[in-house]
């Protein structure tokens, strides 16, 4: 058995099966996909690599790599936690789709994207991961526009930015291979850093490359947007971490950490300021997710294992918050309905659970106390306020985090006020769908429970940073 081939081929087969099974048994298809993705996540953590695997007394040899057109695809043991992370995230997103209007292409696209993410992890040299990330963008963009959401402007912009991001990363990769992975000239180093900053900036929608985000949030299914903002951004962050892990000169270069600090501060400030002035709930949450991404970049700007571990925990908390937001926002703003401030009046009376879940997930994205993102954010604040890691931007780093938190709370409060406007004409009711009620109640419970008792998830999520052996081993 070939381990990387299993993770590349099986998801594609599952995508085909899901596409054809969906019209017959939609809920069963989603359920099977959820279980299979979770199973593959678990399998990644226990699969013996380059050693026999004994099943019912019969040894099966498991190969850890294969060659395709002269390049290796290798399932390195250090990648276990990354594969587990992505497939578990995929399983959660498949499961969450049961609580939203069912879409025929969501699950197949999700499977293909999981296969492409796996390829981006396995391909050697890993610089070619940029190809697979761009291909995943092309597939994910199909979720952003359909007959219900016919305006593809945001998706077109996203594809354009991602294509350019891929090109810059490929250029940086070729530059690295020519310089034998170690630039000696300062000019070479600066040119490389510029290419990497542009490449990743375009991929993670660093301002001013974020203009696709408000368009997409306005014109697409909220659940698809949450799928992209959680899973895709997760894969890009994994690639960024692999760059840091793979090149010691990059890891030891102060300029890289300064760039990450500037990136983090920029995203926190832009996201925070823009979120306060939005009149549409979707856009506000889009900007709050940008604040969250800023916090992620700030955590990566902390050298050593603590930064990578905090980033992993923030990534997991971000994924969960966005998943909850996607489902609750779907309920608050059904297809074609407006999510403008004035049109949401009384929404808390008609959709109390969705309102509560949307409120909490929005607050969780900016790390409000008592919610799932707060423990890693608190750890990050402590790191940033220590004189060692403050770097050239000093107190601006924790200040920008606090500002984004404040702006997030203010923004959520602005939207909560009209929603809480109860009138006699709007009778109190509860969400009609049972699966939606169960999902929202469970989500609200988990957002609070994991925020109050972070020890339930922090250690094992932080362990996924072990994939980056050089970072974790760094002093």
């Amino acid at each position, binding site marked *: 058995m070939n381990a990387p081939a299993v993770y590349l081929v099986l998801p594609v087969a599952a995508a085909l099966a899901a596409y054809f099974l969906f019209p017959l048994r939609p809920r069963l298809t989603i359920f099977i996909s959820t279980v299979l993705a979770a199973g593959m996540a678990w399998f990644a953590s226990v699969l013996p690599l380059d050693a026999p695997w004994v099943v019912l007394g019969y040894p099966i040899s498991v190969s850890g790599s294969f060659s395709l057109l002269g390049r290796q695809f290798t399932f390195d043991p250090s990648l276990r936690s990354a594969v587990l992370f992505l497939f578990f995230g995929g399983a959660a997103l498949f499961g969450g789709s049961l609580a939203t209007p069912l879409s025929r292409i969501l699950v197949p696209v999700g499977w293909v994207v999981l296969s492409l993410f796996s390829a981006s992890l396995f391909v050697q040299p890993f610089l070619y991961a940029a*190809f697979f990330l761009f291909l995943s963008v092309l597939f994910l963009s*199909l979720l952003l*526009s359909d007959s219900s959401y016919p305006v*593809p402007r945001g998706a*077109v912009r996203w*594809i354009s930015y991602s294509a350019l991001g891929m090109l810059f990363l490929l*250029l940086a990769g*070729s530059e690295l291979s020519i310089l034998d992975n170690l630039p000696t000239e300062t000019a070479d180093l600066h040119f490389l850093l510029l290419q990497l900053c542009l490449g990743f900036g375009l991929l993670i929608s660093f301002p001013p490359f974020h203009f696709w985000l408000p368009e997409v949030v306005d014109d697409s299914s909220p659940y698809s947007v949450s799928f992209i903002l959680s899973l895709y951004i997760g894969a890009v962050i994994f690639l960024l971490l692999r760059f840091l892990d793979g090149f010691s000169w990059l890891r030891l270069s102060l300029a890289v950490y300064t760039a990450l600090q500037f990136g983090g501060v920029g995203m926190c400030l832009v996201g925070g300021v823009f979120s306060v002035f939005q009149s549409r709930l979707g856009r506000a949450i889009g900007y709050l997710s940008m604040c969250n991404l800023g916090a992620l970049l700030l955590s990566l700007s902390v050298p050593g294992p603590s930064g990578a571990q905090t980033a992993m925990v923030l990534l997991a908390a971000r994924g969960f918050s966005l998943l909850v937001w996607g489902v609750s926002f779907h309920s608050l703003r059904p297809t074609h309905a407006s999510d403008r401030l004035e049109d949401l009046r009384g929404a808390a009376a008609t959709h109390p659970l969705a309102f509560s879940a949307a409120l909490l997930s929005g607050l969780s994205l900016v790390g409000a106390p008592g919610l799932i993102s707060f423990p890693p954010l608190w750890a990050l604040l402590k790191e940033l306020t220590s004189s060692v890691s403050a770097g050239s931007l000093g107190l601006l780093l924790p200040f920008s985090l606090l500002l984004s938190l404040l702006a997030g709370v203010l923004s959520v409060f602005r939207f909560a006020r009209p929603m809480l406007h109860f009138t006699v004409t709007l009778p109190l009711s509860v969400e009609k769908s049972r699966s939606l009620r169960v999902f929202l109640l469970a989500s609200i419970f988990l957002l609070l429970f994991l925020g109050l008792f972070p020890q339930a998830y922090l250690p094992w999520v932080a362990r996924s940073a072990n994939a980056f052996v050089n970072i974790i081993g760094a002093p």
Partner: protein
Amino acid sequence: MPSEFILIGFICLLSGTGFLTLFRSWTRSLSALALQSVGLGLVSSQVSPLPVAIAKTIVGLIAVTLLALTLSRENRVVADEENSPIQAFFRFSLLLFLFSSLVALLPQLTGVFRDPPAGVAFAALSLFCAGLLNLGLSEHPLRSAASLLTVLQGFELGYLWIEQSLLVLALLAVTDLAMVMALIILHSHAAPQTASESRGEP
């Protein structure tokens, strides 16, 4: 490959790129894109084996065919954009500015692709920059597909000088076609709206 063919390739490539920017009618735009793809193949034969150059042309022509099929299926409800003389003049000025800037900055810019032959570098950068220019001039999904294809073709031409791995070449070809297909699908979702917009309906 004889140098005459490469010269013809340069002429095809640059004229295709120029016409793609100037024309707003779909028939002419697609012809320009096809011309550009043929030119790309001829120019890239200078830095890569002939089969690779032929493959590049074929990928470009497949993309053009996909776009043409989409347009013919919709009976061209995706109306040709308005192209008043002042707009054409504006695009022509931009193009002129772009090409003259590239000529002036070429010695500094060839370093991006690790100093390929000057002609290849100029052709690659022309495609890349003209594609970006077109991307900024229209947000229509099919025009974006043509523009992004131009950007990618420019990059591929320069990248051929650096990287000749079969997997990378295959992935670039897959990327080109997948990008065009994705934008065609996105356009097909938006087509009714685009049609009503073109008829001036609210």
